[in-house]
């Protein structure tokens, strides 16, 4: 039941049946329970969910960024570009990280090393990994800083991170990640720590860079409204599974899973519509309710939800949902 690639172009990333479990003192915590992700070249896929829904865990897990002692990562299939790899193995991914796969983190305040000049940090991948000579690297660094909209690249390159503003730091971070021209960019809540005007600028910047280079973007966020303007496809995660996924248009305009609907209604809107928080709390992954994990917070829950976890249904509007509500007019896939 691989989700369709909207653009129809080649797939950069294809993951099937991804599971990530953390080893904690209290036992094994299943944070991600069978997730399929595909990202095509030039496509933007948004992974949306509350804190603890497993969105970051799936991405960081499959790239082997968790310590192998603390997390177990498995996938039926993990394909990057044309390479069949094993998910979560850092040795397999080490060469790809930084050069073919770039990751931008949430907090630009702390994702740059405070003791290293910005230019030097940006230069690391071209210098150490691509083995370019000093002059080429210098030019590349200045070019990439200019490209992300920094007005005085010379100054910025020789500044320490604390001398830059939050927005500039996130731009510098983007320059660091984009300098090697990765084919997949993973953005883990890249705008959460920024104020709203900067959010828009950063998103625009990512979109521009994507258009120029055809980078596939996997965008992790909890902000569904941010996603609706930017993403080609949306995957909504809840308690370690994807509960609804499909083209952005379909998901945002015809949200079909009760959780997606609730999520959209809980976003404050300018037209004065009532904000409706989702009642209850996300379940503890160590102690998931039987059947559908969302049923304890769901207005549509009935007996069957308690007994059997729903399979995935494809709806006429194009998206797939993991809810018994899809049984009526959707078909199982």
């Amino acid at each position, binding site marked *: 039941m691989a989700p369709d690639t909207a653009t129809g172009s080649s797939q950069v990333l294809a993951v099937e049946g991804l599971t990530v479990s953390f080893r904690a003192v209290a036992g094994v915590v299943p944070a991600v329970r069978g997730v399929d992700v595909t990202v095509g070249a030039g496509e933007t896929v948004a992974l949306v969910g509350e804190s603890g829904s497993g969105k970051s865990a799936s991405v960081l897990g499959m*790239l082997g960024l968790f310590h192998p002692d603390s997390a177990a990562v498995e996938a039926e299939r993990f394909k990057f570009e044309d390479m069949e790899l094993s998910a979560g193995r850092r040795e397999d991914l080490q060469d790809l*990280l930084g050069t073919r796969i770039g990751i931008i*983190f*949430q907090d630009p305040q702390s994702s740059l*090393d405070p003791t*290293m000049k910005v230019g030097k940090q940006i230069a690391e*991948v071209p210098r*150490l990994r691509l083995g370019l000579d000093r002059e080429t690297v210098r030019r590349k660094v200045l070019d990439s800083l200019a490209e992300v909209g920094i007005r005085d690249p010379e100054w910025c390159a020789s500044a320490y991170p604390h001398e830059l503003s939050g927005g500039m730091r996130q731009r510098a*971070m983007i320059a*660091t990640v984009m300098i090697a021209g990765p084919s997949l960019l993973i953005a883990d809540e890249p705008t959460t720590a920024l104020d709203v005007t900067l959010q828009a600028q950063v998103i625009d910047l990512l979109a521009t860079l994507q258009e120029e280079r055809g980078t596939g973007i996997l965008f992790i966020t909890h902000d569904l409204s941010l996603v609706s303007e930017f993403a080609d496809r949306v995957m909504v995660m809840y308690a370690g599974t994807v509960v609804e996924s499909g083209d952005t248009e379909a998901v945002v305009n015809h949200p079909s899973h009760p959780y997606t609907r609730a999520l959209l209604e809980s976003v404050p809107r300018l037209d004065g519509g009532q904000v409706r928080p989702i009642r209850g709390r996300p379940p503890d992954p160590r102690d998931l309710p039987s059947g559908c994990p969302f049923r304890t917070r769901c207005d549509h829950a009935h007996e069957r939800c308690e007994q059997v976890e729903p399979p995935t249904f494809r709806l006429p509007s194009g998206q797939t949902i993991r809810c018994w509500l899809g049984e009526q007019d959707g078909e199982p896939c």
Partner: protein
Amino acid sequence: MKVRTRPDSGTAEAATASTRRLTRAAAAARRRTRATLIMSAGFLAVIVLVSVLAPWITWHDPLDAELVNRLQPPGWLDGGSWSYPLGTDSTGRDLFTRMLFGVRLSLLIGLAAVACGGIIGVTAGILAGYYDEKIAAVGFGRVADIQQAIPFVVLALAVVASIGPSFRNLILILGVGSWLFYYRIVRGEVLKIREESYIDAAKAMGKSDAGILISHVLPNSFAPVIVIVTLFVPRLIMFAAALSFLGLGVQPPRAELGLMISEGRGLIQQAWWLTVFPGALLAGIVLAMNTLGDWLRERLDPTLRVRQ
């Protein structure tokens, strides 16, 4: 209303007056601190310069014994000669020359021992902090615990008894004796640093562990190391002198401050200068280094800076 304003303004005035007094006192204290700092720094600069240039400053050889001139008092006393400005020892060697070379050796020992302990301690601390769960990391901690349970002098005695006293062994003992202080501090720093998102970012850039440790973890854990270094150079100079005094460090006939004090000890009634001058010099160096070290620590440690 008036009734209420009067005491208010009174307290306000009193407050400003007392604030002013405090500010003045603080300013005076700052001036004093500054003067002490400049003196300490100046003294140390002279000491370092003199010890580096020792062979060109003096006209005697530190090991050249002239029994004819034994136990000469300093130049300004009766029977003293300005050829031996601070007098001579029991074998007729020039005290001033021996002090110059003694300081040279003491500084060398201090720096070398700190470098030795620092390299071991910082390396162990970084490895233990970064790979906290690994058995090797646990091993460092246990070794440090065991070592801390043994008094330093006892440890030094045991080591010297087994490998023999020498200049090289002295440095080794002091270095190995102090590694755990660097280890403890650095490990704590690294435990904090490894959770920083720039470490995650570096991992996400595909950097190797070695690359991350050298270019991110090491520089970020270095500020407290500088502070320990400033504390330990004088402390280890002191220890080296103490061990030499006990006969466990530098061996005669070499000139070393602790050894010189020890040699002059028996003659303190006839030739007080043999113990007083080297002792005063040692105390002065350690005092100046500690003063500068304290100042540096206050500058580098933000929790102490708030106080000012």
